[in-house]
């Protein structure tokens, strides 16, 4: 069988059996975490799962245009989901890591603001380039009216394209996605950092101040790794391009929630095992 004959048939259908298997896997992974580390580890894992789900859900909001957008033939930002999500998430993660000493809530909000600002700046500059550089107006190809402003779209859409530029709803979606992604990435980082700060001194036989660089570095590395895993899985869910929350592909999010939860639980469990075995 050649690959040409077997095109990917990813649709919006939900594979119920696989979803159930996913949920069972999630419960098994939580059970393992409960066995190896009932208190601290399990709480950290739950935080990691919430963070992962926030990332997976948030990526759906981000207007990803891919290669067609670079040629002005589809709306969105002209790069792949993985790159955009990594950019927004890591900007948020760095923002949140700065505020890690100020408590969970402030740090997570700071992370969200960091991710949202990154996306807001990106979206604005993208529109700037589209409108003043390429000379094309913003028009959605998926809806007749912008759900937020009510502006009509088809008049501005060029023939033969799926729309172009970044309509207002996509801009708002991008910012929401950045906020959710940044907050999720920061939450993963903070949960792991708290766990490592508490357990690494006994594991490595050193004082808390000595192991701090290790705790920060390992938590940060795991957070980046988990962020990329969740972002790419979500990218697979939306198969490439999405316009924002008004896109029909947005309705696929339940699948991504299950996949992100299981993937985060799996990676989080491994991250917890590093200090418990």
């Amino acid at each position, binding site marked *: 069988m050649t690959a040409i004959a077997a095109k990917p048939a990813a649709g919006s259908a939900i594979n119920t059996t*696989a979803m159930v298997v996913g949920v069972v896997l999630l419960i098994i992974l939580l059970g393992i975490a409960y066995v190896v580390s009932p208190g601290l580890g399990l709480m950290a894992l739950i935080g990691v799962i919430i963070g992962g789900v926030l990332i997976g859900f948030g990526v759906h909001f981000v207007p990803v245009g891919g290669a*067609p957008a670079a040629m002005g033939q589809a709306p969105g930002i002209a790069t792949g989901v993985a790159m955009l999500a990594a950019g927004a998430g890591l900007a948020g993660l760095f923002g949140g890591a700065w505020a890690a000493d100020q408590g969970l809530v402030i740090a997570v909000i700071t992370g969200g603001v960091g991710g949202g600002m990154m996306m807001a700046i990106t979206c604005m500059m993208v529109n700037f380039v589209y409108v003043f550089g390429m000379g094309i107006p913003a028009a959605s190809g998926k809806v007749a009216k912008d759900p937020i402003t009510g502006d009509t779209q088809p008049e501005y859409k060029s023939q033969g394209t799926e729309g172009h530029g970044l309509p207002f709803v996509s801009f708002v979606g991008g910012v929401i996605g950045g906020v959710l992604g940044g907050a999720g990435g920061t939450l993963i980082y903070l949960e792991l950092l708290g766990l490592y700060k508490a357990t690494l001194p006994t594991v490595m036989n050193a004082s808390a101040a000595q192991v701090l660089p290790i705790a920060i570095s390992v938590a940060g590395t795991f957070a980046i790794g988990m962020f990329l895993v969740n972002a*790419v899985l979500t990218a*697979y869910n939306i198969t*490439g391009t999405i316009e924002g929350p008004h896109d029909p592909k947005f309705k696929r999010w339940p699948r991504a929630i299950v996949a992100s939860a299981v993937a985060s639980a799996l990676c989080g469990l491994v991250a917890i095992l590093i200090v418990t075995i």
Partner: protein
Amino acid sequence: MTVKVEVIEGGVPHPKILVAGLVCTLVCLYLSYLNVYTNTAYFSFFGGLAVIAALIWGSNTIKVLCSYGIGTGVPSAGMIAFGSGVIAMLLATKFGIAAPIVALVLAAVIGLILGYLANDVLNMKIPVMIQSLTELAVVGALTLMGFAVLITGSFTFTGLTTGSVTLFGALSMPSYQVSFIGGGLTAVAFLLGAIAIQHPFNACLGPGWKQDRMLMLTAECGFLSMIVAAVMSFALIGTGAAIISLVIALAGWLYTYCEYIKLSKRDAYAWLDSKPIPDVEGH
């Protein structure tokens, strides 16, 4: 919308590359254990060679996966490979001498579950998805372990987290900050590997794709990353050992670069040997 990439048959079959890449990587990683027996760091460069072997295997896996048009761009495959690989690799370092084997098994399990999630829960329905994500996770984990060996000379958790700072030229103090993990070098190694694995197929895909040209580009990218890693290793292993790594990386890069240019000229319809900065006439 999915990007359609034509499948071109030919070249060495994938299973052969898989086995060769896996064996070479593991052998190179274990050869670096000579460091412990001889109590030096001169064998750290085997880590770099393990990186090259793993990258060549991973690059071909990316080709197999991305031929199906996953619609998210080739770089996403490299990102998920290293995202899942780094997690497996960090835990595996806790197992001492068994670390490469544990990294292999652990990454395979993580990749298998991620592959199932992508293929069935997310309904991708790509026949090679599960196998490819499993392979990519293993490649990611072993590549990072190779970089760790190249930079620190060790693949154990203690070796990667403990360094030493010298005060006043004589007094040596243990420090966790001057180390592969504590110094944040994991993140650098992560992206050095991720760029090297995702670039070759992205650069060579298309109707004129040739396997040997793509794999030569992979080796070139790998040696290029190895040069950077070898420079970083000056901070953590002895100067002599770091120079050996650097010389091997430079020689490997020069060789693969020249070979890649030759292969590119072979596959090109026509080429014009222009100079980077043209001579200005009349001066």
